[in-house]
């Protein structure tokens, strides 16, 4: 899309709220009409909802697709032969996978946008990266699961990638010490899923085998959700404090995003808020799907300007969050500040199914 070319030359957090709202209103309405024409399934959805105003809806009136539907349907706004890659994610409510179809232009925009955002988080230069995972031996170039996609996505910021875990999933201390010996004097990245960071860098790591002074230049980025380690009842603050105290890692940043929505990637700033870039925004909805006020907790709806290959520009997630009411910070630049409080639980239904 034309406007993206203009936007991509700016800082990723340059738009003030008034300009951003205007831009989003225009382009999200465009995307709604665009996908209505291109995707038969999406058309059925909007027709079913009796959605009339396809040109001039306010942001809060733009229809949203529940994220679960990406598991049930193959949403496509391009021809099958134009599919460049397919993203898969496993959700929490069932074993089914979401399937997201991306064409070349979308894939390219996704990388560009991620890079623009990342510049604000870490800077412009490429850094050595220690991945807290196993090396994925077989990577199909055209189809990615969530973990492979994330590692692959972040790898563009690295000039060297080293995997910490051996084939059995244990820490390879030799690899670790070689990596640190080589890189500890300058800024370097540590990347991993929240659960893997917890398991390996907090629980398993043998402090006798490492020198915590070697981690002082580390910048640790983690994401993928707290769900797996929820039962450990570890808060963000505790998590960060552990890493600081035990390993000497001062910079720890969580990221949040949906595989289902390209362009929606959010990094914590140093104050602990996720911040929406020029390319995405967030709306919080209550139990009746009405808009919540700032500071109120509710369901997260995400908006993104990027998806053109599939109707994913407005998605109702199953995450719970809030838009920050006060103490707004100046980090990165403009953009809605928000917190994520986790994912909806599979509620304990009364009734007679499941054991």
């Amino acid at each position, binding site marked *: 899309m034309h406007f993206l070319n203009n936007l991509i030359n700016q800082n990723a957090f340059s738009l003030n709220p008034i300009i951003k709202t205007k831009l989003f209103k225009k382009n999200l309405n465009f995307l709604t009409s665009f996908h209505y024409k291109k995707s038969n*399934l999406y058309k*059925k*959805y909007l*027709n*079913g*909802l009796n959605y009339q105003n396809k040109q001039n809806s306010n942001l809060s009136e733009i229809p949203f*697709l*529940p994220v*679960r*539907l990406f598991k*049930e*349907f193959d949403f496509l706004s391009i021809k099958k032969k134009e599919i460049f890659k397919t993203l898969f994610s496993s959700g929490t409510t069932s074993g089914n996978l979401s399937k997201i179809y991306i064409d070349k232009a979308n894939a390219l925009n996704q990388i560009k946008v991620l890079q623009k955002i990342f510049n604000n988080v870490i800077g412009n230069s490429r850094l050595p990266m220690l991945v807290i995972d196993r090396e994925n031996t077989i990577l199909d170039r055209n189809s990615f699961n969530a973990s492979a996609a994330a590692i692959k996505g972040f790898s563009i910021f690295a000039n060297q990638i080293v995997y910490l875990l051996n084939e059995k999933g244990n820490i390879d201390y030799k690899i670790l010490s070689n990596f640190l010996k080589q890189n500890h004097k300058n800024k370097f990245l540590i990347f991993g899923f929240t659960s893997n960071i917890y398991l390996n860098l907090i629980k398993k790591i043998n402090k006798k085998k490492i020198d915590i002074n070697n981690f002082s230049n580390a910048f640790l980025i983690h994401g993928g959700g707290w769900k797996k380690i929820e039962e450990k009842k570890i808060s963000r603050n505790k998590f960060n404090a552990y890493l600081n105290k035990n390993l000497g890692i001062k910079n720890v940043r969580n990221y949040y995003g949906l595989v289902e929505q390209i362009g929606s990637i959010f990094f914590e700033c140093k104050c602990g808020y996720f911040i929406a870039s020029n390319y995405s925004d967030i709306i919080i909805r209550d*139990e*009746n*799907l009405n808009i919540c006020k700032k500071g109120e907790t*509710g*369901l997260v709806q995400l908006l993104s300007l990027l998806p053109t290959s599939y109707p994913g520009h407005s998605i*109702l997630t*199953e995450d*719970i969050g809030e838009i920050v009411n006060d103490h707004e910070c100046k980090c990165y630049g403009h953009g809605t500040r928000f917190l994520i409080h986790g994912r*909806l*639980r*599979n*509620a*304990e*239904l*009364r*009734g*007679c*199914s*499941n*054991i």
Partner: protein
Amino acid sequence: MNEDKSIEYLVGKKAKLDVFVEPFSFKIVSFLDDLSKSLDSKINNKNFPDLKALSFFCRKNNILNLKSKHQNNDTTRFGLGLLFHITPSNIPTNFAYSLIFGLIAGNSNIVKIPLKKFDEIALICKSINHVLGKTKHVKIKDMITIIRYDGKKDLLTKKFSAICDARLIWGGDQTIANIKKFDTKPKNIDIPFSDRYSISLINSEKFLKLSEHKVLNLIKNFYNDTYAVDQNACSSPHLILWNGRLCEKAKKKFWFYLDNLVRKKYDSPLISTVDNYSRLASELIKNKNIHSFKNLNKSLYVVTLKKLYPNLYISKSKWGFFYECNINSLKNIGHVTRRGLQTITYFGFSKKFLKAFFEANNFNGIDRVVPFGQALNINLIWDGYDLTKILSREIEIR
């Protein structure tokens, strides 16, 4: 039975293989009556309607009443022996009914309860332990073991499957298929209570003639059949069939009153908002048979279908998500009675009329036809099984 550490014993340690008595044995009736009293004393001021219903079921008068309906005094019957119950995670009292049916039929019981720790389950087990502590019920001790273990521990399921005389398997089709993998004794009987759905049948003309008071009462009964269990019981209606000449007017009134009651009374978690909206979105995309939909509140969605047709698929909705359709002829019910249909709750028809109708039409798959308000009343005949008969054997004496 074993010392496996992965089992938690809530009641008993060793239900015996060879303990069985006659159905409706006096010992059992007396035990259940004491259990009823113990439950009452524990719940007196607390809001546990399902426990009250359970306690009511266990009363001596009720059991003797059931006995007079179900017992033929001319025959000689005994329990099969040892029953293995695999009970569902969601209706907290379900395991107790399964156990009670097993006891009434005269059997010894191993009851596997869900991992989820409901207050109701703890309270029922406490009551059972309390009553079993009395000397007069010492023999019943051999007949009850209540255990909790992770269903993924196949070895335990395998072990119990190998020794029991019947398995009562409550759960989804997947669970049933999984349990059936484990070998049993040759004469073992499996009684699967699989996933079902249910419908309601309303006579629109009769409904519109009701006084305000009676409308409120009917709506309350419908609410109890559905919202009391988040519409997630197999016997809660999912599809409402409207019959008669005044369907449109009746529908409007019915949903209006239900909307009011639901807004006032029903409390559901945030995930229900997402579940209901996602179900609606999915239906709008894939279901060609939708005429229109109403979203009256977050817990009352009504999808109006164009028509019923043979083998129409009805999804088992929950949290107050209903399908509705008009039917000119009751014979159209036949389109939705395939194997999965469990209960029809009805209003505005006489029992006599319905009995004659269902006898004449021989539909596949209906297990129960009951008035509004009785959908959840579990009984000795469930899912079409006459449990006291199936769980006991007859000795033919000439």
